[in-house]
């Protein structure tokens, strides 16, 4: 159920037990059907598990939306090397707060998904890379892992299957870029969290130089349900290209912010006005960021016709990302918020690639100047061109993430910039 609010239109699969402290415990989890999926998976061949997930069409929930089963199938067979499964719980995309809920309410759901994935890809060691700030959620997860070890679900002989499945809870130390899969691998290895050049891809050379698969917490949490109920069952929701349900993290100017689990292809307007109870103070909608701060803003008009699935949001002019819907009402000072987002990326840039390292700081300086009323119209052209040089020219996509809010806001809210530049007028400031 949505947390802290729920709604009747939700399809609570992953979130069914949010807010239910008993579901955290091993006993409580098993009472709710927990670890049946793992048991079933261990009785299948690893390839069959992968095939089932492939058939479900489950796409990665970390932002890129890459088909999960396909990713697993890239892992080499009989490589003779240790394989690793990494669970990416370094949730830090602004606007996203689903993984923390999954970890703290349903740790066994995450562990079960991890164990199934590890079995499918032939990994004996799983690292769950948790965001450093998640002290409380990580404690819950670690306690659950201990319980699973004690019950023989994890360990040398997982559930009596003869397969070794080990889980290690690893904790980061504060760096957004470690949510990028190869940055995470470097960080796990005790290095600066610098994203790696691909190729080689993780399935060939990943953590510790070994074949590695990395999945988001939410992706792995869904795996158990798919295994238990079948791919067809999962496909009853969503679209051909975006099957299943998804946790939508709604924040900003709505009456009831929070996580809601909805079928993909859910209308954005309905999410805002029905599920979330509308805009605060019944204000007018100005803009929506549909997938976390790394994706382009949608104007109110674009948002109204947008359907929340991977292809639907692209059609509307943005990306679904990790389905973090940030709602802004008419009092929002777009320039200030874009500056804040750009500042975030400047702060979190790892500093390897020149366009990102230099460009993000430059963009922030220009935006700051505009915000302070010292901008020129030429600055807007410079911003567009500078951010253009940051797209597609770097190792990872953090650089592109700077361009998304800057470019889309200048395109869609140019008047706000001009009002500031020409007349010093700021929205939301009396």
């Amino acid at each position, binding site marked *: 159920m949505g947390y802290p609010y729920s709604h009747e239109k939700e399809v609570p699969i992953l979130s069914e037990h949010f807010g239910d402290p008993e579901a955290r415990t091993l006993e409580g989890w098993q009472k709710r059907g927990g670890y049946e999926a793992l048991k079933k998976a261990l009785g299948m061949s690893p390839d069959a598990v992968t095939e089932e997930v492939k058939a479900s069409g489950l796409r990665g929930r970390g932002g890129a939306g890459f088909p999960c089963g396909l990713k697993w199938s890239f892992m080499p067979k009989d490589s003779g090397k240790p394989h690793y499964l990494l669970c990416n719980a370094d949730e830090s995309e602004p606007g996203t707060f689903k993984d923390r809920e999954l970890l703290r309410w349903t740790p066994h759901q995450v562990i079960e998904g991890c164990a199934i994935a590890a079995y499918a890809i032939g990994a004996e060691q799983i690292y769950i890379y948790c965001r450093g700030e998640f002290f409380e959620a990580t404690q819950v997860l670690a306690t659950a892992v201990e319980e699973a070890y004690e019950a023989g679900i994890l360990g040398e002989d997982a559930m009596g299957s003869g397969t070794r499945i080990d889980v290690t809870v690893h904790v980061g130390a504060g760096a957004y870029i470690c949510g990028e899969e190869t940055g995470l691998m470097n960080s796990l290895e005790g290095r600066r969290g*610098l994203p790696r*050049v691909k190729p080689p891809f993780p399935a060939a050379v990943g953590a510790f130089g070994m074949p590695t698969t990395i999945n988001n917490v939410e992706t792995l949490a869904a795996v158990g349900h798919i295994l238990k109920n079948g791919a067809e069952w999962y496909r009853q929701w969503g679209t051909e290209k975006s099957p299943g349900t998804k946790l939508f993290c709604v924040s900003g100017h709505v009456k009831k912010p929070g996580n809601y689990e909805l079928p993909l292809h859910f209308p954005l307007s309905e999410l805002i006005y029905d599920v979330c109870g509308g805009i605060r103070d019944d204000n007018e909608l100005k803009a929506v960021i549909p997938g976390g701060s790394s994706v382009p803003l949608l104007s109110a008009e674009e948002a109204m016709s947008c359907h929340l699935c991977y292809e639907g949001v692209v059609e509307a002019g943005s990306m679904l990302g990790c389905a973090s819907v940030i709602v802004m009402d008419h009092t929002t000072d777009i320039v200030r918020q874009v500056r804040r987002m750009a500042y975030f990326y400047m*702060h979190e*840039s790892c*500093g390897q690639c*020149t366009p990102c390292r*230099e460009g993000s700081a430059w963009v922030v300086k220009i935006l700051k100047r505009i915000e302070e009323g010292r901008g020129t119209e030429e600055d807007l052209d410079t911003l567009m061109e500078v951010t253009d040089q940051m797209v597609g020219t770097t*190792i990872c996509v953090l650089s592109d993430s700077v361009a998304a809010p800057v470019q889309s806001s200048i395109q869609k809210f140019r008047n706000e910039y001009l009002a500031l530049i020409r007349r010093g007028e700021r929205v939301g400031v009396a």
Partner: protein
Amino acid sequence: MAENGQNTETVTLTIDGRTVTVPKGTTILQAAEELGTTVPHYCYHAGLSSPAMCRLCLVEVEGAPKLMPSCVTQVMDGQVVHTESESAERMRRGVLEFYLVNHPLDCPICDQSGECKLQDYVHQEGREHGRSREPKRIFGRDDFGGDVLFYGDRCVMCTRCVRFMTEVEQKPLLTVVERGNRSVIDTFFEQGLEEAEWAGNVVDICPVGALVSKDFLHKARAWDLDHAPSVCPSCSQGCNIDLHTRDNLVQRLKPRANLEVNQYWMCDYGRGHYEWMNRGDRLEAPVVRESDRSVAMGWSEALEALKTRLQAASGGVKAVVSPYWSNEDIGAVVDLMDALGGGEMVFRSPRAEDESVLPGFPNLARRRDLAPNTTGLAALGASRVGDDGARGGLEDIDAHSGVLIVLGDALVDVTEGFAESAELTVYLGAFESAALADADFALPITTFAEQEGTFTNHEGRVQRFWPGLQAPGAARPAWLVLGALAGAISDHEAPIRADEAFQTLRGRSSLFEGLSYESLGTRGARAGEPATVSGD
């Protein structure tokens, strides 16, 4: 796979409309080099791993959705690459502009000016005017210890220096501190590079003026320096170097790439030992002792007098030679002794307690032998005497009653009255020698820095060097002087060019067998091994 030595497969691709065939596994950047096209780059260095982070070497590869980093993208059959397409050039212009957002425009006071890759690339294809109007980031200056000074504001964050210390010297004393645009190269707080023995290389590989040499600081502008290919004289490794000179003084030594000897590197010890080449206390004219006075005279007169004295002398010949002089010079001593009926040759050479190996390229070390040509000397029949400080061991020489020839060794440890019983003493030296102040003949010769010649390194590799300085006064190469003398005595034609002098070595040692001066090229060769292609 490739590591198993089956790397004979080749790949053919097209770069800027020209076709090239290279071994499988080659990168686009390397393949372009084959065609003489340099793709601009900072972080890539042939001697280091490639992080592909400067983003300057991105090129257009047909069919690829984005520009590709040519330093790590491997070639594929039929690939069509454009390094100068509109998109690649536009991207490079963009990246160069990004660098200049914070890079200070202090070229007039920057040592790197003139050999700066940022300067070069921006002049080549950067924007005419940068668009940034924002105040620049200030890091300031930091003394990294040793000879290395860091100007943080000039740094382009290529991390070559960090990778050199980590991968090649394997003493990770440098790191990137902080992240994003606050990233800066630093050491561990107050700990510097003092314990490093190869840190000077980080100055060489820094593409801009961020890491500079304190020794060279504000000494000369890059464009005022002349470069002479040479061989480092400070140990028997024989690192290939360039002498950088101005005003007839060596200003600094820089390593010259030779993949078989020193790759791209040289040690700090060798790099720092060049001041002696600039010494002013030189012998400048032949001086002949006549009863109780010394008389300076011209070469022909002096050699004529010496020839007469040598032919009249009896009691055999002994020679003390120096391992800082070339194979040709020592060969000429042997020629002269042969002309006089034979003799004995000894040398003294400083030795360190141990080697200092470069872990990332263990073929390279600062060797125990701290002179460049001990191998050559030994091959030509000289025996080592004295201690590891190149002192002592001259008792037999002191007692010698015949002809004594001293080449190069100034005998600084020798007390007055040395070789009093010698019938005739001949000193061929570059520097004044107190011990040999009363020599019957004191003849000014050139150092390796002032002449052509070859050294033989510790593994028998014979390598050529070229003159970077003009010889003072009447100083001449020893091989020329001694060759003329030997020729006159035995009525042979004397060598008048360095290659002719080299030819005389053949037959004297197997180390020179089959080698020709020409085939040595700029990178040297070993007898019995195919010569490497020079000039690449």
